[in-house]
């Protein structure tokens, strides 16, 4: 149910784009209106979500420490895994965001007879990293459609990504990697029993959607060739806010654009917001220095305590008998 409904939703999106452009010829709607709307939803939604998280304060200093604290000068302090200040936190966050440090620790717990064993389990880390980095490179590559002249950095990236020089048009390595990584991530969700057990429709849907985007993109580049000049014209028009609508690009392009638009519009309201959330995670972005620097809780309020005077009033005789000094006679 969760799986089929997610897959059907993506198929429906493809059909909508195909019917909308190939049959109804609504090129302006699918080429201009929807992309603008989606981008607006994405940008505003993203900001809204970040602000919403940001509005909740961080009352306590709760980093998860994964190494030796800074204590005595002769004990080697782990500056990254247990940061004591901003520099360490920045280092920790860079490792976390760019290289998925925590996921790299992953272990597999196995029961061997009446014993437990722990084995290395780096596939999830590798699959996740492969997907996210390919995605980033592909996004940056797409800048060549939106910028004129194309910056040398983007051209360089393009060259690197296609250095294998296979086929015409030249094959991008990231196209292969992202498909493999997405299929791996989908496969483990389908076939690892625990992961399947915890998965929701909202875990399958983004995977199918991304696969749809990647597939339509690959089809368009390598098989159902579209007119790149027209594509660039449309893209540049969108960016410069002077949109023109070429009608001769072919439905596969509009399917691709519609799926991307769907992803953008869906992003802020979904688990994909982990992209923004990771920056705010208090167990990772705080320094373990709460004994040295007082952390302030903005809503700290006075509480009822059992005072020493109340305590002594109850136990004075017993204290005196035991030779414990008291305040009042």
């Amino acid at each position, binding site marked *: 149910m969760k799986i089929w*409904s997610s897959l059907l939703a993506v198929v429906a999106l493809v059909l909508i784009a195909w019917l909308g452009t190939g049959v109804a010829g609504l090129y302006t709607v699918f080429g201009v209106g929807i992309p603008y709307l989606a981008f607006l939803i994405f940008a505003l939604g993203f900001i809204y979500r970040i602000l919403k998280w940001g509005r909740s304060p*961080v009352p306590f200093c*709760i980093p*998860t420490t994964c190494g030796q604290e800074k*204590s005595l000068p002769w004990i080697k302090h782990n500056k990254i895994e247990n940061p004591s200040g901003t520099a360490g936190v920045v280092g920790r966050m860079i490792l976390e965001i760019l290289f998925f440090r*925590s996921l790299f620790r992953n272990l597999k717990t196995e029961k061997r007879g009446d014993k437990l064993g722990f084995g290395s389990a780096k596939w999830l880390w590798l699959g996740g990293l492969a997907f996210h980095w390919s995605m980033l490179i592909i996004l940056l590559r797409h800048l060549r459609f939106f910028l004129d002249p194309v910056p040398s950095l983007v051209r360089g990236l393009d060259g690197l990504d296609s250095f294998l020089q296979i086929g015409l048009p030249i094959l991008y390595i990231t196209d292969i990697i992202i498909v493999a990584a997405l299929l791996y991530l989908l496969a483990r969700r389908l076939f690892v029993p625990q992961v399947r*057990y*915890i998965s929701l429709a909202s875990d399958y849907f983004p995977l199918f959607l991304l696969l749809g985007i990647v597939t339509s993109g690959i089809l368009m580049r390598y098989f159902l060739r579209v007119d790149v000049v027209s594509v660039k014209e449309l893209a540049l028009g969108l960016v410069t806010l002077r949109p023109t609508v070429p009608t001769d690009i072919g439905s596969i392009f509009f399917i691709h654009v519609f799926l991307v638009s769907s992803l953008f519009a869906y992003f802020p309201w979904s688990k994909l917001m982990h992209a923004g959330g990771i920056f705010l995670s208090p167990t990772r972005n705080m320094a373990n220095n709460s004994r040295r620097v007082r952390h302030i809780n903005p809503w700290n309020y006075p509480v009822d305590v059992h005072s020493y005077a109340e*305590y002594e009033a109850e136990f004075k005789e017993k204290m005196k008998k035991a030779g*414990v000094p008291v305040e009042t006679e």
Partner: protein
Amino acid sequence: MAKLPKQDELLQISYKPPKTPWMDLPVDFKPGTYCHGAKGKDLQAVGFPNARDWSPGEEDWKLPEEWKDTVLAGMADRLGKYRSFRLFMDVCVRCGACADKCHFYMGSGDPKNMPVLRAELMRSVYRRYFTKSGQLFGRLAGARDLTVDVLKEWWYYFYQCTECRRCSVFCPYGIDQAEITIMGRELLNLLGLNTEWISGPVANCYMKGNHVGLEPHTMVSNIEYLVDDIETLTGIHITPSFNRKGAEILFVVPSGDYYADPGMYTCMGYLMLFEELGLDYTWSTYAGEGGNFGFFTSNEMAKRLNAKIYAEAKRLGVKWILGGECGHMWRVLNQYMDTWNGPADFLEEPVSPITGTKFTNATSTKMVHIAEFTADLIHHNKIKLDPSRNDNLRVTFHDSCNPARGMGILEEPRYIIKNVCNNFFEMPEDTIREKTLCCGSGAGLNPGENMEVRLRGGFPRANAVKYVQEKHGVNMLANICAVDRVALPTLMDYWVPGVGVCGVHELVGNALVMKGEKKRETDMRGEPLPERSAEA
């Protein structure tokens, strides 16, 4: 207490999830797997709502009529107060990296003990009442209504989490199940849904100054009893002081160390060390508890109990505070105390009177961990040690969850152990330091009635101990946590017979050569010293 199941019965663990979706699996309140319900009088003592006697095994939990509104309002309030809570409700992608990191999952195979699912118990309700998608799509979006059964499920599984944070080490977004469990328990406490084993000590600590409910004269006589034992052992008579104004240092320990075997040997170690140093310190009967079961209840309750430490330090006019070996105590002291009850501007920045070392990492809280203090002494050669007195022991070290993952005190205790023992062996790398495995009894889960769950939760730790027992003949599991000292002996007897449990300062006390002491015949536990037994 339910009859203890046999090992091979407990080890029938399958990690294969059931066919039934988890939302359709009701909780089975099977004796041995849950704690007794809180007693009305204990809740009343600290002014908690819905104070009444109740039993989790019974159908009727005697909930107030408006319970659902209370929980949802409480949730809304906390979502606005804790970024961790709101964020951790939203950003999980269910990658499953945490799934097999929880000791309760490893020991039970219960899918709801996967941290991700334990969190989903709460998230599903969050989605239903606090997100549009949950309101629109319901179950398809992973949302469900808050019902009495859901509430019972929360109670069962949030009191089957030791807040050990191991899952948080592996989560790519740092999602910490402890934060969610803490919130879950706060909400449950709005309805008087605590356990007897937590709310009893909370009431004791509030009224009497320590969890175990020792009144001042009893605490004094307990320490004096240990003083007598030290005199028998060493010939040296110690006269500790209580509630003494003008002492340089206030010393605070977890109350289990006053009387419980083997925690009391750790306490003897403290007493002997301070005597040997001539340390100007005092105990307090009012702030006689470093541990904080309030932390397993609500942040407010934890703050109310913790307040006594600074209040007492101020009243007595001490310069700084030294804290004993305890796990969650140090999570609280390191990450919460100063925020709750600081600033401690009436104290001085801590300096060791023996070595002159400034504890620059504690300049705001003014509270130093005894392992830091003792490691510094040893590093400066200030105490005479004879590690051969511990030669009958082959020691391994269990990193307690909170000091490891909520502080990072990893090397100090190891440094001390290596200086007071000749035989030290580490457990496998994936089971120590930040990846340490919980004793399975933390966060207030160490009564007797839930023994099956404790044994299951403790199995992964015991499994690693067994490894070093077989490989290196390890016979002693050292730690810096009072709950460990109470909980692990039972666990070792069951899973790894032949391995004892001790605090690090017990080993220090044994190895410490005191000025003017008589020739020791035995260690603190009355066991003949190794060279003696070799002669015999």
